């Protein structure tokens, strides 16, 4: 079936202060298709989106046509009028307003409208929600909604204005598997209504699941547009990065004789029940399960921040009662939190300051001030060890890319020389190449005889990087798997059932 093109871009280039963000890119979208745009950070995805939404103007020679009509002077307002809606990663909602008002916010901007027609706004919200088959309480404030529900509000707002093209920038990066499924259902419904969706994503397996066509950008150049059917995530990763990614399972052995962490019948009411396992020296143990399965709560208990009700934790042969994270750190347990942006780093402080945050007491000189020399050598060593790409250690952390930020968090914990390192979803929001870098680091740490627990709901992640995998469901451990004896398909089935 040949469908008409909704949008055509030809020969689009864009340069910022001498940096070529896009180079002669052609791109087209068909009416009613789901199109994925993939590429690493800095590959030009967001520049392309901003050209479509009229925020940036392409360099002379580039052409934009919508419905076959050339649009030489596209503005943000003009692009909205043509039915193009962008849902930004931060969703751009008004947290202090109710769901209905967020969806119907465009009513306030109608030319000539002075008074608010609350009835009309509620109707508009209700209609839009039923159009895409969702239902939320109209009077709830958006700040009280889960991230997934906010995403739905953002989609409804885009739909309420008769959108024909909805561009979603990283819509799944903070969603759980179930929420992603709900979102995909909405996208398919949009497709039935001949609305085109552009999906920008890091999660390649999801891209394959939803997309009809995939366009890959690398360093501002289009690698190509492919039918999703002829793609698999390995090929996609290769095209995105230009490098073969290693998909073998972990082979390095670990010390089966020595347990660095032993958990016996650990329970906490409302969180998890009767958890027992052992973690050996140099072992990478995967724990996987859906959000709400208790995995994060368990990790927090092992780090002293969510003390268990009953049961026993043994670190290095010694029974411990962890009631604070300071105790856990003192016992040799490190923790890399799920949301690295808010929990792991002081974002606007320099890289160097973040690196030494956990070991300040080891850097003190005789008068209890921080010793400049010790501080410098420590920072340099951390940066070299983990090959953090930073031009100056005094740059703030938020100037680094996601992958490099992740390394800074890792370095921060490594400085405490932990025996056990808890990694909670360490690669959320990180692109393929940076992920590989993080996996390498994790394996290197294990080789240094650290015991590592890797919590993740991405099956390939645990499958390719762990010695052993435990799965959790509803607060209980329900299965133990060995990567060389199972497959991605089997494992994801096990996790998602029930």
């Amino acid at each position, binding site marked *: 079936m040949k469908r008409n093109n909704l949008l055509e871009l030809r020969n689009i280039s864009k340069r910022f202060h001498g940096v070529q963000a896009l180079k002669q890119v052609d791109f087209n979208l068909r009416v009613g298709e789901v199109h994925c745009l993939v590429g690493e950070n800095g590959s030009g995805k967001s520049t392309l989106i901003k050209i479509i939404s009229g925020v940036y103007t392409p360099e002379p020679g580039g052409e934009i046509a919508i419905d076959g009509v050339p649009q030489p002077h596209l503005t943000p307002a003009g692009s909205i009028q043509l039915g193009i809606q962008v849902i930004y990663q931060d969703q751009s909602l*008004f947290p202090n307003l109710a769901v209905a008002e967020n969806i119907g*916010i465009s009513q306030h901007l109608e030319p000539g409208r002075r008074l*608010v027609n609350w009835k009309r706004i509620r109707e508009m919200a209700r209609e839009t929600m039923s159009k895409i088959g969702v239902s939320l309480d109209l009077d709830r404030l958006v700040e009280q909604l889960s991230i997934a529900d906010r995403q739905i509000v953002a989609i409804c707002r885009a739909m309420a204005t008769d959108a024909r093209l909805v561009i979603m920038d990283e819509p799944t990066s903070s969603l759980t598997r179930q929420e992603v499924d709900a979102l995909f259902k909405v996208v398919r419904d949009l497709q039935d209504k001949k609305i085109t969706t552009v999906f920008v994503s890091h999660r390649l397996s999801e891209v394959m699941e939803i997309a009809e066509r995939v366009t890959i950008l690398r360093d501002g150049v289009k690698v190509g547009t492919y039918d999703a059917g002829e793609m698999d995530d390995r090929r996609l990763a290769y095209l995105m990065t230009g490098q073969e990614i290693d998909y073998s399972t972990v082979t390095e052995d670990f010390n089966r004789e020595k347990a660095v962490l032993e958990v016996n019948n650990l329970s906490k009411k409302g969180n998890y029940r009767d958890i027992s396992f052992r973690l050996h020296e140099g072992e990478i143990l995967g724990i996987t399960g859906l959000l709400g399965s208790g995995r994060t709560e368990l990790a927090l208990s092992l780090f002293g921040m969510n003390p268990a009700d009953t049961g026993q934790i043994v670190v290095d042969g010694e029974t411990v009662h962890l009631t604070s994270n300071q105790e856990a750190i003192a016992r040799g347990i490190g923790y890399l939190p799920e949301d690295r942006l808010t929990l792991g780093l002081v974002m606007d402080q320099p890289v160097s300051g973040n690196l030494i945050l956990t070991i300040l007491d080891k850097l003190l000189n005789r008068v209890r001030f921080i010793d400049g020399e010790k501080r410098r050598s420590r920072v340099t060593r951390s940066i070299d060890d983990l090959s953090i790409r930073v031009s100056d250690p005094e740059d703030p952390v938020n100037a680094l890319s996601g992958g490099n930020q992740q390394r800074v968090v890792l370095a921060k914990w490594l400085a405490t020389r932990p025996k056990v390192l808890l990694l909670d979803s360490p690669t959320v929001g990180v692109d393929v190449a940076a992920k590989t870098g993080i996996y390498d680091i994790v394996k290197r740490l294990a080789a240094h005889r650290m015991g590592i627990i890797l919590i993740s709901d991405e099956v390939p992640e645990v499958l390719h990087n762990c010695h052993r995998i435990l799965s959790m469901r509803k607060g209980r451990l329900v299965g133990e798997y060995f990567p060389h004896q199972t497959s991605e398909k089997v494992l994801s089935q096990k996790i998602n059932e029930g």
Partner: protein
Amino acid sequence: MKGKTGSFLKGSEFYLLLVIAGLSAVLTFTTENFFSLENLFDVLVSYSFVGILAVGLLVVLISGGIDISFTATATVAQYVMATVITQHGGGWGTAFLLASAIGIALGILNAVLVHHLRVHSIIITIATLNVFYGVLIFVTRGKWIYNFPDWFASGFSLFDFSANDGAVYSLSLPILVLLVVLAMTGFLMNRTSVGRQIYAMGGNMDAARRMGFRLFRLHLFVYGYMGFLAGIAAVVQAQIVQTVAPNSIVGRELEVVAAVVLGGASLAGGMGTLFGTVLGVALIAVMQNGLILLGVSSYWHKVVIGLVILMSVSITAYNRKREERRHAEIDV
């Protein structure tokens, strides 16, 4: 309808009401005059000025900004208005129009600076407070104005009625103006597109920009409205005290900020209700009135107000923490 206005009594408003009721009960039993029509009307009249300014500040806080300069704006408006009606005559129309026009002009100046310099509005308005006030003192040499015309001295009132004690009470000018300002602002913030855009802008400025809100116009409106109400409040205050002293209003801005914040408005923007603001002003009014009736030295008034603000903020913070904890447990 209703974003924030929906739930009539939000948590913080309920606590405020409780505190005011408790305080009033205590004062009723410990003082002779607190629970009397005379005292009630006295308090209403003398706090109408703070009330009007608080309403203006509420709108600025909802929009995500803050204005400190309104006392200086009010002083300038008051002085010019008083000079004109004492020397050239005129009526209520002249007084209100002149004062509010000057208020709007100074408010617009604030808006232009806030919007174009992109410096936090607290810095801008502290600066303009000093500029407005400094220029006024320099030009007038701090001279007081007394000899108001008769019509200005007598004011006007509605619904006169005699109480059992024989005195005559009525809705006098300050009370009437306060009621009109409340009704007008309530309509503005809940029923007009501009009002809702101001809420939205205060909730998420970036999103408002991306949606194509005309932020400059909104800023002009918000700071202009604050200036407008500062002008109106200036006339009311002059009518109550029948003198214009250049230094009588400046210095009270923090009392107004305290009242609005006590009433649940957030300095981060996007939050706050008129009802809450009314309660915030009422709490401060009852407290100060009570302290006067109890014969407490005026030096202690500020200490007590400070402590009450700390307590109220602590209760709010504690409740938020409890709320978060409850959410966390549901999430598991």
